[in-house]
């Protein structure tokens, strides 16, 4: 399918130099180096389908030593490289801009060690998120971060993006669960960071690498914390007349000192889309908003908390509160949340899953603005979100082949980010910056703040070979629009274009 190339800096794939391709084949074997255009097509985008740019080659190493050699080969040819997991990312972070080499980690998918006594697992980066929890379950443990794509996404990708999920309110995001990493540095050296004990001498480089979007090296091994499965889980579904009262319930729950495992809101537009689809969960079509609350922990505590939440929801205006009686009903409740993407996705060929965060107290006013922005641009926009974290996910169904609609989608996206920042928020809660939002970094950070981030980048990758062209604003942007409007009027560090 022809698509408009919206990726900053992306040009036609240059094609990897023949000598590099030979070197890569010698390292991983001929079958694990992809160079034909039809093979590369699958790698021209990630989950953010309107940013595209094909790599010059894709290499699939089998183990960390191969990754190190691949990186050294790329360095010898001055070709950039881009680590990639399952390609489920939503911010364009796995694109090889300008024809770099993609290092795909899917063959490195072994759980190397699962130690229930220490409560840790040592894994290769290509292990699928859900598979780790499955492997840990017989020991009464699980891996807590659970992004919506957990059936497909890999933990290497989760580390790059510091992925969250619906249960981060209680359990934290990926960064709270990674104890140690093995990294192939930009020089192609294998380096161990952190320790499975949770303390290592020196700066917290594990903390710096988690969420760095694959720009500081290639994660080739991770030691992660596993946590005990809760004794009891209860799921409530509350129907509200409008989203404002649902948000009020969320605020009341947080203010009360309860820490549910999840606090999720589905808005009216999404409810209708779900009930019109195969994902129908039996929600009332006139529901103004649906709140899903999951509580877990010790049984004696959870049963008391269910009653507290029920009372708070009713007090905030819930018309009806149901408690799942069994696992089947819990799944039905969650279908109302998790089916949202599928239901919205069937409305048009493309779905733009936006991501921003606001203070939880600002949710009602920001949601109203988000809907107004979508309406004004004539878009099919709905909201499902991690209300307990203030993490909004406005979803826009659209057709990228329609240039006018795509333009309106991007214009609305920018206005939404501005609205969130004005409310005290930030432009990404869990999807990352990638190529999607790099030109909006100036909404949140000043030039000195970005320069500090560049210092870290420079310490790890002074030649800018590792996933270049991500996170940092492009200069292209300054030329094309009013720089002062976005705080780009200051001269970039060093005066030269930097990724």
């Amino acid at each position, binding site marked *: 399918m022809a698509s408009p190339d919206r990726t900053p800096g992306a040009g036609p794939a240059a094609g990897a130099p023949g000598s590099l391709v030979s070197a890569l084949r010698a390292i991983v074997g001929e079958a694990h180096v992809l160079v034909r255009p039809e093979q590369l097509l699958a790698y021209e985008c990630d989950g953010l389908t309107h940013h595209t740019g094909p790599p010059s080659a894709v290499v699939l190493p089998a183990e960390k030593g191969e990754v190190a050699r691949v990186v050294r080969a790329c360095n010898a040819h001055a070709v950039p490289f881009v680590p990639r997991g399952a390609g489920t990312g939503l911010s364009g972070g796995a694109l090889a801009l300008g024809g770099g080499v993609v290092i795909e980690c899917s063959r490195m998918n072994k759980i190397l060690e699962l130690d229930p006594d220490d409560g840790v697992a040592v894994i290769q980066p290509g292990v699928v998120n859900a598979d780790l929890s499955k492997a840990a379950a017989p020991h009464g443990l699980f891996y807590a971060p659970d992004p919506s794509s957990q059936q497909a996404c890999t933990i290497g990708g989760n580390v790059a993006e510091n992925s969250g999920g619906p249960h981060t*309110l209680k359990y934290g995001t990926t960064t709270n669960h990674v104890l140690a990493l093995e990294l192939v540095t930009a020089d192609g050296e294998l380096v161990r960071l952190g320790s499975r004990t949770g303390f290592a001498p020196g700066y917290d480089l594990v903390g710096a690498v988690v969420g760095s979007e694959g720009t500081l090296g290639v994660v080739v091994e991770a030691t992660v914390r596993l946590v005990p499965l809760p004794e009891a889980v209860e799921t409530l579904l509350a129907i509200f007349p409008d989203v404002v009262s649902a948000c009020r319930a969320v605020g009341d729950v*947080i203010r009360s000192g309860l820490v549910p495992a999840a606090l999720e809101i589905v808005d009216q537009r999404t409810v209708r889309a779900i009930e019109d689809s195969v994902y129908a969960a039996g929600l009332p079509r006139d529901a103004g908003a649906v709140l899903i609350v999951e509580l877990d922990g010790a049984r004696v505590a959870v049963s008391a908390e269910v009653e507290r939440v029920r009372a708070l929801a009713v007090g905030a205006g819930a018309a009806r509160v149901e408690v799942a009686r069994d696992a089947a009903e819990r799944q039905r409740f969650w279908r109302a949340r998790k089916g949202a993407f599928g239901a919205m996705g069937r409305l048009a060929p493309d779905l733009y899953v936006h991501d921003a965060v606001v203070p939880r107290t600002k949710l009602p006013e920001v949601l109203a603005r988000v809907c107004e922005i979508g309406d004004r641009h004539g878009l099919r926009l709905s909201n499902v979100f991690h209300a307990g974290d203030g993490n909004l996910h406005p979803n826009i169904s659209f057709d990228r082949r329609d240039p006018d609609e795509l333009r309106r989608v991007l214009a609305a996206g920018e206005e939404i980010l501005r609205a969130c920042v004005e409310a005290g928020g930030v432009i990404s809660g869990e999807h990352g910056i990638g190529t999607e939002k790099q030109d909006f970094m100036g909404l949140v950070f000043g030039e*000195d703040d970005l320069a500090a981030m560049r210092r870290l980048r420079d310490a790890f990758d002074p030649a800018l070979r590792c996933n270049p062209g991500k996170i940092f604003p492009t200069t292209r942007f300054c030329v094309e629009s009013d720089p002062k409007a976005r705080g780009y009027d200051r001269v970039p560090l060093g005066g030269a274009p930097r990724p």
Partner: protein
Amino acid sequence: MIASADLDALRAAAGEDAVAVHDPLEQGGAKLAVTLAPDGAAGVGGALRTLGARGLAALVRGGGTKLHLGNAPRRADVFLSTRRLGGVLQLDADDGVVEVRAGTPLHHLRAAARDAGWDVGLEAAHADATVGGVLASGERGLRAMRFGRPRDAVLGLEVVLGTGEVTRCGGRVVKNVTGYDLAKLYVGSLGTLGVVTSAWLRLRPLPRLVRVLVGPAPAEEAAAVAAARALAGLASARAVALVDAGVLAPRRADTAATGGAPARPAAEAGAGASPGLVLLAELAGDEALVDAECARAEALAGVVPGDPELLARAHARQAAPPDAAHLRFRVHFRPSRAAAAVTLLRRAGAEVIAQPHAAEASARFALGRGDEPAVAAVLRAVRESVHAGEGHAVLEAAPAWVKAGRDVFGAGPADAGALALARAVKARFDPHGVLAPGRFAGGL
């Protein structure tokens, strides 16, 4: 020595009233007779730029309770104090977040949070400790199993880099992947990359009920560790420790009384105590849960409600400042090696405060001074033992001459690659070596 021209330049950069000259204070082998106390981040930036231009170095000082941590800096000319950078700026009780300046004593912040119905997930052994000091040192107390690391409480920071640039990272929201997570670098860096001037922190719910439980531990270390791990499995457990009985004795001049050896009075925690180790636990949460689990804890490990002050006493002791009679260490080990670590330390005659469970496997221990070769042998044995399990032992409190010439952080061979990257980080965040050069791990 600071020249008068240096003082003039510092006054011009940081503010006339930000420069105080006083009697020399001995710190890490250096004598510091000047304290800079700017009243804002801009003043801190001006001070750091001026120091850098003049080849001088600063030791950042909050409450002054952790200046002994780390290596002896290669150079330190002035204290850079956060004394005038205090105060709770914004506490959003509905959102459970707070913005606080670095020089605020942690107990002031805790009181402000409590008034608003919240708790702070940071701990400090000393009343004078500041928020900035706890973040810079990464201090973990006995509630680490629940509170996590100090970095986990941080949402955003304002930091003045060694270059003098005033920067921000993170934000005020509870979930954020907007750009690099630089806060992780600064927290625990002992003020060697930048000076934290203010922070946005996530608050924690205030538990409705808190109970401190205490009881004698089984005499055999493996059984004692197993009992501690069983207690740590309780849903409401907020702290679980195995503590040398002497630690829990009411404060007295124990070091003087025992002629320099670690004090070992009998446990006050109840009759039939094994000689030495006491189990200490704190349960926190809703009343029904805590009540139910108090009973469960007694059945599991024989612990019963005790003096709520015991926890604070143990924490204060584990983070005690240097004294003439002790060397104090912190050791981190694999949870599965906790019994071996505790046994090793006890056999060596160390006074031990251990958190031997999966969520936080660490211990503080003190060795009596006097026989230096014996102390060195113990440390060697401990490091050999814990390095094999990716653990580390850090020398925290010791006289300057003991620290001189050594890296107290106990890096093992596996840490070499990380320290090389750390060196590159230090070179970029503090290129002029203004911030206590040499104080941090690897001589950074």
